[in-house]
């Protein structure tokens, strides 16, 4: 019962974090939300995988967030989402539509793939909101976070299908590789200091 309650809470946290990431905000807030999202994904994956394997996902996700955070430019730390209030409301509305779609599609997909319904819902929320984020922004940080969210959602779904140490490790490497590419793309040229 407690486990179900916690799993439900993890799904709700994943959805709320995905919606909040859509709204945008500063880079620091985005990375904090991303870290919370990965914590929720870790809990969902932990239902199917041993805690050690699930922890690999969590740690790789947090390391990715830390790597992206260290290369954030000053303006990214304080920038606000484009489009003002109408833009925020539009993105939220689109996010709510995706959430509704995930709720409606999850039972049918859960029949096709042998994945528990809550896990399927959590995975679809992460994938759907991540894809929406990818379609709505060209800011590098948010693109990378969107990709990592989609991969987290995929991990939640796939963890119920197969348990493999090598897949977990390779997935973690891809997560870190994406973060490194993101750090490369976010890096600014070094400025000459005063003599």
């Amino acid at each position: 019962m407690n486990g179900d309650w916690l799993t439900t809470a993890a799904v709700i946290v994943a959805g709320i974090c995905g919606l909040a990431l859509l709204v945008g905000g500063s880079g620091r807030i985005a990375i904090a939300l991303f870290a919370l999202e990965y914590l929720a994904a870790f809990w969902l994956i932990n239902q199917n995988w041993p805690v050690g394997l699930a922890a690999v996902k969590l740690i790789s996700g947090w390391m990715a967030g830390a790597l992206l955070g260290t290369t954030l430019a000053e303006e990214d730390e304080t920038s606000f989402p484009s489009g003002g209030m109408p833009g925020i409301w539009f993105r939220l509305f689109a996010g709510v539509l995706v959430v509704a779609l995930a709720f409606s599609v999850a039972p049918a997909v859960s029949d096709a793939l042998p994945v528990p319904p809550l896990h399927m819902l959590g995975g679809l929320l992460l994938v759907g909101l991540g894809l929406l984020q990818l379609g709505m922004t060209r800011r590098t940080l948010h693109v990378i976070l969107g990709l990592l969210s989609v991969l987290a959602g995929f991990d939640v779904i796939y963890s119920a299908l197969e348990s493999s140490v090598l897949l977990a490790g390779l997935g973690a490497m891809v997560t870190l590789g994406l973060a490194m590419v993101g750090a490369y793309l976010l890096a600014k040229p070094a400025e000459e200091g005063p003599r």
Partner: protein
Amino acid sequence: MTAPLLWIALPLGAGGLVWLLRSRPGLMLALSLLVSGGLVVTAYLLPFDEPLRLGPLALRILPSQVVVGREFILPDSSRPLLMYFYGLCAFWTAGSFAAGLRKTLAPYGLVVAALSTAALAVRPGLYAAFLIEALVLVCIPLLSRLGRLPSPGAQRFLVLGTLAMPLYILGSWALNQAAAKPTDATLLLLTGVFLGLALALLLAIFPLFSWMTMLAGQSHPYASTLIFQYLPVTVLLLLAGILKENGWIRSGVYFQDGLRLAGGITIILAGGLAAMERHAGRLTGFIVLAQNGFALLSFSLASTQGDEITVMSFLPNALALGLLGLALAVILQHSASLDFADLQGTVQRTPVAVAGLAVGTLSLAGLPLLALFPLRYILLLEVATEHPIMALGVILGWLALLVGCFRLLAVVTGGNVRPDQYLEPQGLESRVQIVLLSLAGGALFIIGLAPRLFLSGMSGLLP
């Protein structure tokens, strides 16, 4: 000594070492050519899994290597593939100085070739998804300079290439399940949807083709043609491997129709959009898109003849694409951009590059007497036998592609030339550029004149 160690680990390590030598471009080039050329020669001379005597030493190249419980297998029959991949690496690296990428391309050529080889060698094939994702990630620094915002094309390539990975993994899982229960319609549907989407993303099949044209239009042409050469070839060979291991797929109700439709629509769309395109880089993207469409059309044939047609087109495709990339790179060094407005009268400034551009684009477009025409002709005959309407559509797309190429040539050889442009210096290519362009163009002509001589051995690339 194992083949994966020699043809995967060694070039990966060499690529890393070459990358550290960026401050010495000459040494970078020499080392890359030495490694890639050496690997080609080694693949040609040394058989696998046979004892070799080198004086007092006895050597045996084993075909498989176990890494973390999974195998990388390169059997003796894969030697043509290794020669092809590393020969291309040497070919692209040799042109990197002339193309203006002297400090960047050499290490990436080795790493891309090694990752492509690894993706085809890994067992089970599920793990190829990670290696292809690694290939996508590795290519990003080649497409985007440090300290500059990434181009939308590079960003889209990263996004769509990464999205293909989970789809491929899910598709492979569904395929394994379906192989055990081939009558389960749900599993077959899941296999088709997931694997189909993954392959469509990686091959830029309609409607998921935007990354290819955006990348071609916004990146250095020589760098983008390297990616357009390795990524589609690797994915097509993966598809050939999947079809070989799971022969029941070919007999599926929707398999041939689906591939034929996807390939045909891609060709028609690519040709139609190419005919209206006004940027030489994006035009290259549409040309490559059409190649992928023709490849899918070949795979849709009932027999394995289609697979052979596809692999036989790899060599002329590679030469033409390399020639096209180099020609555009040389032209770009003497033009503001690759937009048609800036390319008018380019033939005065870079006549040899324009000649190379003509040969490259028309070869890829399949003009008669050039290298790809015989293969296109055979393919269309096969398709027309059972699906004449699709063949008609493909011919129209093919003609539209030719129109696009001729429009480009009309611009570079004529256009509205301003009076002051007549006073511009002419023949600005360096000797190295002239030699490389001439060699590649000559090779294409020779292959076109004697295709049986050069292309019949390419069927050894099939898994």
